């Protein structure tokens, strides 16, 4: 006897019904939760920016953000100016931290003059932080981060995050021991030319004492993620070099 579930017509109807039910379920979940999710993401951006300028609840070894409750208030307190740089022209925009770097990069079509480059200026304990968001790709998916520089383009703090790097290997770019290595590193070489910071294997400086070598120690087993960090620092921070040149001259 043929089972009724073996019939072609049944199979097709089942497939259609299944697609409708699952599709509706997913659409409903996504749209009902999306305001809450985007609010979470907005606050996370504020926490990331604050983290890069050293406003965080770090304990001895792990990276801890300020609480989601305090983040908006601290963000207004510490971030004094939010700027957008477009083709060399600087304007203020208090929504600059919401600029989606991925979309902006894609919309510019590789033309740096069309980019809207966000820059956040913060004050903490009398020190000025110029915080720059960066975006790139790791081994599996997107990686991004926030780097805080001083007027001479020396790193004062860094935060990295990723979408789907391998846990235990590439995912460790968001660990303290990796991010803290960047503090004090120079972006420029001795002659003031742009050089970036390379995540280097075997740089013979595992404790990262040499801050002017433009290198930090790589994570074992995470070569491609590390190269991604190097690449996004080089490509994205470079766009801000004219701004810092101006800053010095004035």
């Amino acid at each position, binding site marked *: 006897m043929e089972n009724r579930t073996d019939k072609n017509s049944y199979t097709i109807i089942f497939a259609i019904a299944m697609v409708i039910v699952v599709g509706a379920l*997913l659409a409903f979940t996504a749209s009902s939760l999306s305001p809450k999710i985007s609010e979470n993401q907005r606050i996370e951006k504020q926490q990331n920016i604050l983290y890069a300028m050293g406003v965080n609840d770090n304990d001895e070894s792990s990276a801890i953000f300020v609480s989601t409750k305090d983040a908006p208030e601290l963000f207004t307190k510490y971030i004094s100016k939010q700027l957008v740089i477009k083709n060399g022209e600087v304007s203020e925009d208090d929504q600059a931290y919401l600029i989606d770097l991925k979309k902006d990069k894609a919309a510019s079509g590789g033309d740096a003059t069309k980019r809207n480059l966000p820059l956040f200026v913060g004050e903490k304990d009398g020190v000025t932080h110029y915080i720059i968001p960066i975006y790139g790709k790791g081994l599996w998916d997107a990686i991004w981060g926030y780097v805080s520089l001083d007027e001479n383009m020396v790193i004062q703090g860094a935060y990295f995050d990723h979408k789907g790097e391998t*846990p235990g290997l590439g995912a460790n770019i968001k660990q303290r021991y990796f991010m803290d290595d960047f503090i004090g590193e120079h972006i420029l070489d001795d002659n003031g030319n742009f050089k970036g910071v390379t995540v280097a294997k075997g740089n013979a400086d595992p404790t990262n004492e040499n801050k002017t070598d433009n290198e930090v120690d790589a994570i074992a087993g995470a070569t491609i993620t590390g190269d991604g960090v190097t690449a996004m620092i080089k490509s994205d921070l470079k766009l801000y070099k004219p701004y810092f040149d101006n800053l010095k001259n004035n």
Partner: protein
Amino acid sequence: MGLLSKKDTKLITDPLADNNPITIQVLGICSALAITAELKASIVMSISVMFVLGLGNVVISLMRNIIPSKIRIIVQLTVVAALVIIVDQVLKAFAYELSKTLSVFVGLIITNCIIMGRFEAFALANGPWKSFLDGIGNSLGYGVILIIVGFFRELLGSGTLLGFPVLGDPIAKTGLYAIGYENNGFMLLSPMALIVVGIIIWVQRTRNKALVEDH
């Protein structure tokens, strides 16, 4: 155990040793290699798989009489993908921090062969309660291996366990490192996970000859 009959108990205990999904059925190897560089990731992955496999087995078992056999694999895939995505979205909305830790595993769970393997081999032929127990049992069996592999890889590769330095500081040369011990960076790479799994299989089959296949 009063709650579970003898047969039900076997559903949970069998996959732990003599019918282990990784070492005997050789399912779920891909994720066992990918994420066991750290003990913590192994534990998180085990718990996530337990949740998805337990729930997924129940859903598939409830649907077992209406799923057309010609497209059953796709139906299974849709069910597990939908489940995982809904859970991920809910976590993103209400437990954002947790979701950030887990989101990396989402893709790995959907493609985990253990999930499809158990749907296909068990849930399609058994009732929901039995399927639930089978799901829990198999994910425990999976978790045990993941945790053993994660333990050795993190200990020998990084000299830490759950992030705590247990062998001393490799840079300041304290503890074991003072007498010339070095971390084996090779342990952090996937090939060593395969070798550790191989050693587990070897030990298990040496202890229980009945598991050795005849050729």
